[in-house]
């Protein structure tokens, strides 16, 4: 750990996930000094892989990633989970998981790298719902491409399969080959429905890329890609370090200090695991600590100057919590065997409901046909049906090859009442309160989910499905957004179109917390593009300073 007098840099970043580490990399390459403070520890891939192999509960996405007491994260998607406390009518639908680790939550994502649609940025203007962003798709397009090159994204040729987000450049890598299960599913959808199945853009290698190998389809992108074929934030950490950025693990930022005018941030303070306090000064500060932890930090930093928390003159810090809260079903197809589980987890999407005029009354959604190995589920089902011996084996084989799993991302909507606050009763060992979220699913999203259920029932009928297993209620997607919402009016938003806080001129936020709407695509590529745009702004301002 650097000594006290080292703790100063041009830019100080809180959080080392895809947002923080990619900003650090861009700035360090431009010769700008950077310190990144990461609350969690630094752990190598091999330990996560070994943990995954040792775990009995393979689908536990959080399982292989042990939290440290000074930087806890939710242990799993369960209520109560003793860290992320959720309340309200749809408390269970907001059980988000994330990681506090060097490299961030992309250790266990599925690599889905969607660009948002142009309409996603103009929801209010086009459909009279929710809010507009303070930027347009075209502002972000070059940064989307930069993010795709950084991560290594594969995707379809737009001339063959237009995903609705205009591209100036082709994807850095060709799209993934289509698995057998996906081929069957595509055929069914194109022949028997008015819909289509598209290649999901993926931050995974379809050829050797960035000194990392080609995806071999191990089928456990979540919880951990065992060979490094899928992007995660740790690569950007390594690249940034090679360019000279300094990363400090186990540094839990708990306070954001400002000047006497409360206009500029002057330092952040962090605790080490023994609660020793350290002060880090800089010219610019970026909070890139995940939607939930970012809002928590800004609220916890409240003091006499800012009694409601940092950058919170609008009162919107912690509000407008969104997600792609969805619907999930699995069933046994009565048609030909599909043999799912060959290849990456999420590669095929029905994208017909990502946009449409009906968005003036119900939310958009997309449908994943999940290509995961179903042996576990099939075994449980076969045992519950009372099979034994040779018949049990045959049934497991039959059920595992015929299981279909579908789930949706349904569009949330910014509602100030869906709010993150600091727990009054639960604190971690450093005395920092746990986050607490009140969540009531917006009517707009409920209607969207109802529409999805109808579609799923139609598809089950088409496939002569049996043994339906619907996930009760709603299915959280771990795509939290909105807690420091973007807007043009400082009275009802926290950051402007460049992710700069309205209240503090040298404080930026790089996270899905700035999203004004959530659209339907997975959020990571948009987080990365926004972060790279923050880096671009900082480079320009520091060059003129």
């Amino acid at each position, binding site marked *: 750990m650097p000594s006290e007098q080292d703790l100063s840099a041009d830019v100080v970043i809180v959080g080392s996930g895809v947002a923080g580490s990619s900003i650090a990399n861009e700035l360090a390459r431009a010769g700008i000094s950077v310190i990144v403070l990461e609350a969690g520890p630094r*752990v*190598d*891939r*091999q*330990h996560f*892989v*070994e*943990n995954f*192999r*040792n*775990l*009995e509960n393979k689908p536990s996405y959080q*399982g*292989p990633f*042990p939290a440290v007491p000074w930087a806890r994260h939710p242990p799993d998607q369960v209520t109560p989970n003793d860290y992320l406390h959720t309340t309200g009518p749809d408390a269970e639908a907001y059980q988000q998981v994330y990681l506090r680790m060097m490299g961030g939550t992309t250790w266990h994502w599925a690599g889905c790298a969607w660009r948002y649609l142009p309409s996603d940025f103009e929801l209010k203007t086009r459909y009279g719902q929710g809010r507009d962003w303070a930027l347009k798709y075209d502002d972000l397009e070059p940064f989307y491409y930069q993010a795709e090159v950084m991560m290594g994204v594969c995707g379809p040729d737009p001339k063959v399969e237009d995903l609705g987000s205009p591209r100036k450049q082709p994807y850095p890598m060709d799209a993934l080959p289509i698995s057998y299960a996906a081929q069957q599913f595509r055929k069914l959808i194109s022949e028997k429905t008015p819909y289509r199945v598209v290649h999901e853009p993926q931050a995974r290698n379809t*050829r*050797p890329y*960035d*000194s*990392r*190998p*080609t995806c*071999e389809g*191990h089928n456990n992108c979540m919880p951990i890609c*065992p*060979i*490094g074929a899928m992007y995660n934030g*740790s*690569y950007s950490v*390594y*690249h940034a370090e*090679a360019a000279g950025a300094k990363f400090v693990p186990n540094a839990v930022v708990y306070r954001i200090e400002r000047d006497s005018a409360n206009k500029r941030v002057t330092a952040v303070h962090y605790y080490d695991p023994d609660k020793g306090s350290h002060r880090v000064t800089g010219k610019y500060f970026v909070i890139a600590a995940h939607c939930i932890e970012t809002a928590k930090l800004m609220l916890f930093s409240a003091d006499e100057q800012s009694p409601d928390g940092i950058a919170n003159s609008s009162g919107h810090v912690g509000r407008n919590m969104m997600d792609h809260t969805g619907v999930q079903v699995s069933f046994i197809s009565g048609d030909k065997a599909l043999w799912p589980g060959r290849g990456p987890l999420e590669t095929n999407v029905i994208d017909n409901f990502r946009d449409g005029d009906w968005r003036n009354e119900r939310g958009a959604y997309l449908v994943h046909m999940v290509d995961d190995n179903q042996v576990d589920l099939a075994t449980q089902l076969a045992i519950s049906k009372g099979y034994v011996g040779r018949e049990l084996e045959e049934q497991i084989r039959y059920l595992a090859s015929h299981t279909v799993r579908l789930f949706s991302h349904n569009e949330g909507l910014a509602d100030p009442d869906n709010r993150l606050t600091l727990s009054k009763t639960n604190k971690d060992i450093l005395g920092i309160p746990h986050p607490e979220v009140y969540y009531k699913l917006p009517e707009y999203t409920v209607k969207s989910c109802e529409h999805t259920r109808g579609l799923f029932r139609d598809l089950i009928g088409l496939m002569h499905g049996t043994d339906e297993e619907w996930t009760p209620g709603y299915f959280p997607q771990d795509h939290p957004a909105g807690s420091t919402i973007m807007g043009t009016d400082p009275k009802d938003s926290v950051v402007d179109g460049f992710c700069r806080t309205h209240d503090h001129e040298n404080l930026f936020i790089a996270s899905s917390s700035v999203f004004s709407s959530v659209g339907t695509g997975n959020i990571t590529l948009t987080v990365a593009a926004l972060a790279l745009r923050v880096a671009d702004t900082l480079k320009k301002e520091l060059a003129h300073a």
Partner: protein
Amino acid sequence: MPDVTRKILWSVLTAGTALATFSAVPARADDPSADLMARGEYIATAGDCVACHTAPGGKPFAGGLKITTPMGDVVTTNITPDPDHGIGKYTEEDFEKSLRHGIRRDGSRLYPAMPYVSYSGMTDGDVKALYTWFMHGVKPVAETPPVTSLNFPANLRITMGLWNMVATSETPETGDSATFDKLRRGKYLARALEHCGTCHTPRNIMLSEKEDSYLAGASLLGWYAPNITSSKTGGIGNWSEDNLVEYLKTGHVAGLSQAAGPMGEAVEHSTSHLTDDDLHALAAYILQVPAMTDEAEHSPREQFGKPLEEADVRSGELTRIDKLDQMDGAQIYDANCAACHGGNGAGTADHYAPSLFHNSVVGSARPDDLIMAVLNGVDRNAGGVHVHMPAFNQTSDVERLSNAEIASVVNYVTATFGSGDHGVTAEQVEKMGKELPKTP
């Protein structure tokens, strides 16, 4: 023999320039015949000129690769037809002198990093074709790479004249090399063009190849170019001609071996582009090279090992590692290697990731190439397949294994799938890790 004298030459480890086809220049009225040009390009490929005369990421044939020798670094030169920076002013006679005798146009001596002792075996007709192609088929590049500066006495280029007096050169072949019978053609390819002996033949104290130990195996910067004589125990005497052809074409033969490092480069840039007839000729010649027993290898290195018997269910504690203690060899294998090479070591069904048993590199008594593959990874684009194993050294983005971890996993792999635990130490791995490719 002192280790240092073996480190004479090596090919490009990281030249990221995949040059299956070279960039052509526009046709002109006085263009030489297409046949001559095609032959020249083929000879250049068989001679693998591009391997050394292109810097990593640089323009083809513009030079700039640093070749480490015991006497210092030799920087390869620009051999594009640019008149000021390349060889544009060379006459065919000038070209022939440098190619076959190591004498530059200005009369000074080339360092033997340039394998002119091998190229001296080329026929007049092939020299002419090669010259013609370099002059008309290669795009001129107006760049001069840094100049070589060696230690005394090698910095005196005159010394190289004395060296030439003791070094053995190939005797030039005569006639049309295209009409040679199979073994003669094979010998021509092996000795004059592909210069196999440059890496595979040990060198004497004068750094000259030992003719009485032709292809008996030698070290080069961390890698070991193994004994490829017809010895059944020390060499490749159990390989069929078809096996060797497949290896040279794709870089891999299931159940025998696979190419990485400098040999992977040679396959990618040179041998995979040879015609089937030439590959068979080359293989037939290599397989009749007199057997040389090996001081270390006493049983066929490709015949060791068998699949590890795995229990269906893991025994012991199903717990995650909250304490990040150093893992043992079996755990490191499990977490870093097993995903591709299998828990049982059998590799993938399509052999994209090779089996670790019945694998010459793992079965060898010299763990050098296994250590180098773990350190530097494998990147070989040949035969229509781009094989890539990530590096596990301290620049890896996938996993940075310590020297001790690499030693421990290598010992586990050779003990489990190969010829036994060779007691590799962290110090050994550290030393080999320093033998990394250098870019100027």
